[in-house]
């Protein structure tokens, strides 16, 4: 059995507003193993992002416990590159905040930029880059801190469909190559099946775990785009779609 990187036990979370208390998450338990990509999928507004905030420590759960073994990196919905910093300065932002800017860490970031095709664009400003390149720069900004676990919060949803396919494929390969563990929140069922080893389906608010799928696909090319051809893909899709129980 692989090492457990994140362990959630009976996690509940309530929001407090003047109108009262809202239950967002209820008794959520699951483990994330090392090297695993786990997808979290659920109806919109069910508290998926809240769950990530709890794993990352930005929010404390109302009840239950969270155990994290390793350093966490967070990827948000948009790239949020700072317009007034060039790509190099943006990539160093996290290191700067954590006061760990050293010659060594700079070299590491430089290497990442070159490795993932942004070496020549170091001195460009974000508005000079395409959406895909910006997303890559944002990923490097996160990787610069050498996280063990990556939390992706709808990280591709601001991109157009084609870029999104290409970038999710690329991010998948980069993260696998760097041997990271990933927790991927998405509302895109295909994206979840194509990227994840397991998928946690959450219910409507208050969200609880409805079902956990083990995704086993038979395909030669285990990349998000390649495995969309797998025969099991449709079955998983239909099954998860039913589980989500969407009514408009």
């Amino acid at each position, binding site marked *: 059995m692989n090492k457990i990187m994140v362990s959630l036990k009976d996690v509940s979370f309530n929001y407090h507003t003047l109108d009262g208390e809202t239950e967002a998450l209820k008794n959520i338990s699951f483990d994330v193993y090392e090297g695993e990509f786990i997808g979290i999928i659920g109806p919109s507004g069910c508290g998926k992002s809240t769950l990530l905030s709890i794993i*990352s420590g*930005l929010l404390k759960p109302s009840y239950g416990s969270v155990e994290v073994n390793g350093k*966490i*990196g*967070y990827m*948000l*919905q*948009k790239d*949020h590159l*700072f*317009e*007034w*910093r*060039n790509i190099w300065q943006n990539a160093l*932002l*996290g290191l*700067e*905040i*954590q006061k760990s800017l050293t010659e060594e860490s700079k070299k590491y970031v430089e290497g990442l930029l070159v490795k993932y095709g942004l070496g020549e664009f170091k001195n*460009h*400003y*974000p*508005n*000079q880059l*395409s959406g895909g390149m910006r997303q890559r720069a944002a990923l490097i900004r996160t990787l610069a*801190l050498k996280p063990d676990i990556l939390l992706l919060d709808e990280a591709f949803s601001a991109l157009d469909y084609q870029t999104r396919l290409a970038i999710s494929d690329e991010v998948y390969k980069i993260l696998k190559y760097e041997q990271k563990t990933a927790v991927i929140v998405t509302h895109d069922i295909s994206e979840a099946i194509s990227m994840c080893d397991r998928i946690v389906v959450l219910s409507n608010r208050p969200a609880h775990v409805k079902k956990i799928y083990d995704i086993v696909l038979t395909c030669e090319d285990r990349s998000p785009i390649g495995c969309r051809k797998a025969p099991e893909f449709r079955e998983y899709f239909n099954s998860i779609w039913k589980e989500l129980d969407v009514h408009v």
Partner: protein
Amino acid sequence: MYEAATPYISKEHREFLKKVKRKNVLIRVTQFALLIVFFATWEIVARYKIVDPFLVSQPSRMLKTMIALSQNGSLFMHIWVTLSETIIGFTLGTVIGMIIAILLWWSDFLSKVAEPYLVVLNSLPKIALGPIFIVWMGNGEAPIITMALAISLIVTIISLQTGFKEVDEEKIKLLKTFGATKMQILTKCILPASVPTIISAIKINIGLSWVGVITGEFLVSKAGLGYLIVYGGQIFKLDLVMTSVLILSILSALMYIFIVYLEKKLIRWR
């Protein structure tokens, strides 16, 4: 998208560039022509007594006044007095306004407490405070600078505070995921993201500082362009009034140009 060397420019593109350039030249020429026509008309209608030059003055007489004033050195003294008061008032307004806006951003409690006071102070016509400043500070430069400060400060605070609040929450969340402190959020995100807001506040501030200083000089002063305008008005020397107004408009234009230059330097990333 990327700047690349273009060794070859097509004929069509050259035509296009020429067209754009020609249009820009035409705009500049028209701007200057308007100015010249304005002053020429003024000169002519005054010279042929179509309007009374005693009431509207005359460009040639303004020029004479300017020369006379500069020969006895008082012109530069008056300009300097007004200019220094404006720069001090403007700098104080911007710096103090910025500090207060940062404090209000820092503490939500403080900002909620201050809100009604800011609203009242913002709508109060600051000139009403003039006599109070004079009683408290005498008839030197202090009440004039205070007037400029009073007029510009509240607007600065309100516009900067609004700008700070408009910075994308997600950017702040991003910094928080890195474990940023509040001070880091301020210096790495809020302030640099607000540079355009700060510049536009500065632009407004310059105008308001001029208003404050001239108003102050109207109320109490021994020197300055505002003093010349009031003095000239009282002794019915419209040449002096018009000359001072002209100098004033040139000065404020120069100061504005300086800020636009600063803006270009600071916001390269646009």
